[in-house]
């Protein structure tokens, strides 16, 4: 256990080294946040005070800035490090180290995303809350539930990224499967517009998918949906995707051939 905690801390410190990346990431979040805020303000102007598919304009603005807070911890900048290490063969050394390779990587990435959550996610969210009427939780349990939901989203996103990374065991062009799946994830996950606006059946399908646990769940908790059912759904997906990605790793290792000495 202590080894995993050390990995979490190492990941946190490593990510802290990228100051320029942090600044440019924050600028990017600010820019897209402002553009999306303009969009939703203009849309709701035509219907003042009204809720559209359960979201009023405060909820929509919260969605905009929660997406900016989450984007960098879901599609992390180091997304290709794992498959690159598989392709180059460096991943073999991971298998010779003590402990569980999947858990070690999870611990390390939790440290890295933890640093992003502390610096990159909170700043745009708090900054926006100062100037815009966001619907963020105002009670301690509400805030804790939102943080817990964001952490679960981080673990789900690790598992989803891991599944895409596993493609490197089968093809050197491991980005191709991702490039064809990403548009669907982008749309159905709710990165571009809230899943709540989708027509009924599509919305139901999106909310039953693991993408919901990754993107919309923390947003729904933040705008005041009952937290326990959402958190339970996320926890279930953490377990399911964990088993699937670990199974995938076991399968990959069985067919892996190590060249050279």
């Amino acid at each position, binding site marked *: 256990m202590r080894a995993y905690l050390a990995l979490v801390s190492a990941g946190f410190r490593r990510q802290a080294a990228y100051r*320029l*990346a942090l600044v*440019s*990431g924050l*600028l*990017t979040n600010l*820019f*897209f946040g*402002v*553009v999306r805020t*303009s*969009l939703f*303000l*203009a*849309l*709701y102007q*035509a*219907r003042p005070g009204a809720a*559209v*598919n359960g979201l009023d304009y405060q909820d929509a603005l919260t969605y905009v800035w929660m997406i900016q807070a989450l984007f960098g911890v879901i599609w992390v900048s180091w997304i290709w490090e794992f498959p690159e290490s598989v392709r180059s063969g460096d991943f073999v050394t991971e298998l010779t180290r003590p402990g569980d390779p999947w858990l070690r990587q999870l611990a390390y990435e939790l440290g890295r995303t933890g640093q992003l959550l502390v610096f990159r996610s909170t700043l745009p969210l708090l900054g926006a809350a100062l100037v815009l009427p966001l619907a963020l939780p105002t009670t301690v349990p509400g805030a804790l539930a939102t943080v817990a939901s964001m952490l679960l989203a981080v673990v789900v996103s690790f598992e989803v990224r891991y599944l895409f990374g596993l493609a490197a065991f089968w*093809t*050197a*062009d491991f*980005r*191709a*499967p*991702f*490039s*064809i799946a*990403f*548009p*669907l994830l*982008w*749309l159905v996950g709710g990165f*571009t*517009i809230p899943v709540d*606006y*989708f027509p009924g059946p599509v919305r139901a399908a999106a909310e039953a998918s693991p993408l919901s646990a990754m993107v919309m769940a923390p947003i729904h908790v933040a705008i005041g949906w009952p937290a326990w059912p959402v958190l339970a759904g996320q926890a279930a997906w953490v377990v399911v995707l964990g088993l699937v990605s670990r199974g995938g790793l076991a399968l990959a290792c069985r067919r892996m051939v190590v060249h050279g000495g």
Partner: protein
Amino acid sequence: MAELARPTGGGLAVYGRLVSAGVRGRVYRPGWLLVRTIGSGLIILADGFAVALVVDRFGTLAGWSAPEVVLLVALSAAGQGLGLLLGDRLEPTYFSELVRRGTFDQVLVRPTSPLAWLIATQVEARYVGRLLAGVGMVAWAADRSGVVWSGGHLLVALLALVCCATLVLSICVLGAALTFATVEGSEVVNIFIYGGVTLTGYPVQIYGSVLRFLFVWVVPFALAVYVPALVLLGRTGPPGLPAALIWVSPVATAGFTGLAALGWRHGLRHYVGTGS
């Protein structure tokens, strides 16, 4: 080797052969290239679909119907596809690799223009998918919003496509020029490449004065895409940005391209390499 040793006839033919060699070098798995080409188009279709859905749910966006807003998304997407086809590899994330490894030093000793060599050898064929998906979406949106395809309107659509692509390519060149100084890649350039195109996907009147000024008169995406769209849709445009400004679009685009060229020359003249 025999093919390389053949006299090339000089001029543009050299670049044509560099493009073909570069693309063939990347097509080592044609199936996967096809998959990535489709992927690069699908992402734009997903964006267009989402915009249509959300505008439809609310009725209008600043007085624009869903197909009219999709026309903006489609024109900028097609232009971005064309621009990134040529300029994607100049983005700081990739270009900093060439500078750090000293690969760029080798480019300098070749008997071609360094910038033209970089663009010609690194064409990203998969962005053809985005260009085609964008053009398809333009056709759909124009049909739904009642655009009449007269010869003049075709020219206006082509002007928007070329101006938007030129702006995207110019930003890529500026990003590369910046990388001469920073060496490490920075993502800030992406704000202008992807952000600029996202921003022109919606009617300009929804933005505050700062964003509007920035994207009309500094990085003139609004002149390149929004104003031509006004002409296609037969709209007069908001105060300060009338459809009559269509004549300024190519001029502003050329001006920005000139700035990018100056930036590149300045960067190149001060380039000292990173040592070995």
